[in-house]
């Protein structure tokens, strides 16, 4: 894990998120509010450019009344939490077997070439990044990628071009908020 202290950004936790955190805590018995940690990390990450600063994690520790280390160790264990800045639109391609049988490797290559990045990199304008991830439970609808809360399935180079255009035009929804 790289705890990135230099590239800071102010922590944003809205009233709406605070109310959500309270509701999430209420799902667990008294004294067991730590159970809400994984969900709260998602909520806060969504509100803070899709990555978690140390300050954000410290704030979460405070909200759940646990030690900061308990947040760090969880944030670093699970692959969906980012501890470094990512592209505004992060394409998370499934690279596992079933998707490979349907051309996932070609599509990842195509996208990286088109955007001029390698897997794990962010485009200079901060708009896109590409990441290879493991099976997303869409094996029959391959090749596919995850973007925010949503899946884009049965992809082709043409659909990829369109998706990139739509992202640039700000027409792509990332969150499935309530």
């Amino acid at each position: 894990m790289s705890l990135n202290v230099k590239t800071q950004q102010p922590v944003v936790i809205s009233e709406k998120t605070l109310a959500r955190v309270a509701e999430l805590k209420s799902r667990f018995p008294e004294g067991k509010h730590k159970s809400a940690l994984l969900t709260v990390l998602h909520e806060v990450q969504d509100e803070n450019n899709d990555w978690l600063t140390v300050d954000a994690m410290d704030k979460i520790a405070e909200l759940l009344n646990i030690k900061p280390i308990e947040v760090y160790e969880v944030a670093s264990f699970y692959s969906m939490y980012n501890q470094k800045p990512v592209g505004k639109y992060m394409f998370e391609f499934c690279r596992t077997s079933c998707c490979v049988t349907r051309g996932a490797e070609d599509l990842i290559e195509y996208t990286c070439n088109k955007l001029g990045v390698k897997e794990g990199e962010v485009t200079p304008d901060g708009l896109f990044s590409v990441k290879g991830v493991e099976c997303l439970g869409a094996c029959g609808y391959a090749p596919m990628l995850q973007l925010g809360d949503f899946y884009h399935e049965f992809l082709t180079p043409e659909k990829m071009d369109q998706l990139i255009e739509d992202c640039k035009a700000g027409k792509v929804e990332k969150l499935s908020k309530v």
Partner: protein
Amino acid sequence: MGKKILLEHVNVEGIHTYEVYRKVGGYASVEKALKMAPNDIVEEVKKSGLRGRGGAGFPTGMKWSFIDKKSGRPRHLVCNADESEPGTFKDRYLMEKLPHLLVEGMITSSIALEANLSYIYIRGEYMWVYRILERAINEAYANGWLGKNIKGSGYDLDLHVTCGAGAYICGEETALIESLEGKRGNPRIKPPFPAVVGLYGNPTVVNNVESLMNIPWIVENGGEEYAKIGVGRSTGTKLISASGNIRKPGVYEIELGITVEDFVMSDEWCGGMQTDRPLKACVPGGSSVPILPAHLLFKTAKDETRLMTYESMSDGGFATGSMIGSGGFIVYDDRQCVVRNTWNFSRFYHHESCGQCSPCREGTGWLEKVTWRLEHGYGSMADIDLLWDIQRKIEGNTICPLGDAAAWPVAAAIRHFRHEFEYHVRYPEKVKDRKHFEHEPWEQVKHLMTKQEAVLV
């Protein structure tokens, strides 16, 4: 068309909403269960012969009878919706389409277990499904199926959904419990089993989504009726998520007992191969189960017809059989490379190892490295034996079965496709092309292997 237990109403317009679901008879099993003695429900589930649909196939009724009801500690039912085994996408389909069937199954099962606080743990990537479940649960509360004194019965139940954040290991039941407690997903050493010490130290049952969705039907129609479907000890229906090089990938509900050949070739299910390229191999139960070469898929080694049942699929043991596992049915045609696929799976397990025990943490790393170099044309004949040796040293020596799950695919690939591994060693310049078998399938190059050359070591 075979019998449908889970998907009977899947195409009803608006079935994800409470009103429509209730109109087609939804929540009737809760009404019935509230009038039954909890242990009688457990007996019905035992009679049904239902086996866990998460992968291991452990009888559900028996698992329920182990839950500690004597200590007087609170009990919990936890639904395992972590679905991350490569090839498996049935639970997502079920929850997206029929969220209320899961809620109903959770309530009826919680009544049987006398649990008053239950959870659905869903993988973090299924965030939009999480929202669907949240909505369904809210609707169930609003209509009096959850909360205090449900339908005047005196029984209280709270049910909530909570999510993971990208870790296959959290599908292992004790890792799931840790994760649900807000910790890293490190599996616990068993015993004690969750049925005695589970969530928050309380007796807990963990069941797969599909297992729990079968419960309403069993309670309404009786265990004996359920046991009439299927063959022998493989009772009921099973969802199979089919992917790979077939014409119609998707989720299918089959009666256990149809033939594998029908499942692959019939238009009712997979619809045959994707193109005119022939079938080469199949991983019939999710990435962890042994791969079967084409000649062992439709027939067993004894030349009997292979059926979609727990028994028939594993006929021949690991030497010539496989497992039904999670129902993740992956079909490969002759463009696909078994060595590349083995590397792909090994990378997956290495990535997903929680790192607690060294045979798994180090062993999966070595499996990935050695399969990588074989696939990319840098391997030696000794590497093939080395792989065999590594996988053998992982199996059985770890805290949780992820170690075995990483070892088995490698062992099976070498067992059935050793010639392909050797080809990679002898013709490195050919395999450096990622699509080597797409351009020159095995059938076209296998004659090269009969050539006597200086043995490369």
